């Protein structure tokens, strides 16, 4: 009992990712994460932690383990297919200057 490093109960609370809608009309955006024993308390803690200054009108919390993500490297060939499809952009199509409203 005299060991300095012994500390009391350390419940394993899962990690939640927190998403906040800044104002009506905007998407929820990931703002960070926190630990909580359940979703309800995660929401409560997220309110205190991430919206102390009116930063949001709505919060989502999602168990981090429930997030399915693309591969670790964020610039890998997974996103390559969109790279060579320039015809998906409006600027690909030359239109004479004198054609109005296009």
């Amino acid at each position, binding site marked *: 009992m005299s060991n300095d490093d012994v500390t009391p109960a*350390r*419940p394993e609370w899962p*990690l939640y*990712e927190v998403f906040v809608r800044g104002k009506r009309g905007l998407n929820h955006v990931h703002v*960070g994460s926190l630990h909580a024993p359940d979703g309800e308390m995660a929401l409560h803690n997220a309110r205190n*932690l991430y919206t*102390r200054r009116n930063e949001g009108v709505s919060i989502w919390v999602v168990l*981090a383990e429930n997030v399915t993500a693309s591969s670790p490297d964020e610039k890998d060939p997974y996103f390559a297919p969109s790279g060579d499809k320039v015809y998906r952009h409006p600027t690909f199509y030359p239109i004479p200057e004198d054609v109005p409203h296009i």
Partner: protein
Amino acid sequence: MSTTAQEAPPGADEALQADFDAKIAANQRIEPRDWMPEAYRRSLVRQVSQHAHSEIIGMQPEGDWIATAPSLRRKAILLAKVQDEAGHGLYLYAAAETLGVDRADLTERLIGGRQKYSSIFNYPSLNYADVGVIGWLVDGAAICNQVPLCRTSFGPYARAMVRICKEESFHQRQGYELLMRMMEGTEGQRAMVQDAVDRWWWPSLMMFGPPDVDSPNTRRSMDWGIKIDTNDDLRQKFVDMTVPQAEKLGVTLPDPELAWNDERDHYDFGEPDWDELKQVISGNGPKNAERVERRRAAHENGAWVREAATAYAEKQRSAREVAV
């Protein structure tokens, strides 16, 4: 996402290292699931967790004065500020966790004396003028340190710093405003402000760490983009910013060598007592033992709350399962 950094398969290190170096060179952010050199990860864990601990321990010197705030207005402000420090600690612990460490473990390292926090919080806060001076000088120095870190190479750390810096400005301004009010007061109140400035000035300069010649890891941390400016550069910047504020306030900074240098376009200033900094960092400051002991007591006395929350969540889950 706060997923743990991945281990590299053996043999692939060189390509991964090259990719990492290229990202750093291109001033891109490293994200938690990217490969990173183990030394980079370890350095960051140390830096981010010390930073988190500093925020948490930093609640104590000012928290002492909440109960005796001179007005309801000052009390509300101080409560909000101390609550912010707790929030800053949590943003940073969350950033540290994306590097594969556990917050509970970091807390145990702090209260076991195995990890450090900013030297400044080992000085006592003796009266309410200290609350103002801490906001002005200590949070001012923290801002100097932290603003460049918004561009640090590790994404979660940089994002936490952005949030923190936004809130830190309130901390500094409430302190300066408090001091302005006191300076408009009685002779005795002005003397309190001057006394607090005399006590906090040198420890504030020490917050930037040892002089560059004594800071062996600076070069490597700067190459990695987890440190942006050297200790001495930041200290100079802080002095340059603060001297005009002191003049406006009507206090004297306790340094006879302080003088504007036209050639350098900076203020010259005296050398802090580096032996004192070493002493405080190695645990012999006036309040080291008390700060850590108080953190330990808070952690241990809060155990029942964590247990109760866990039990409540469990009960709710079972109730839902029964209902289904």
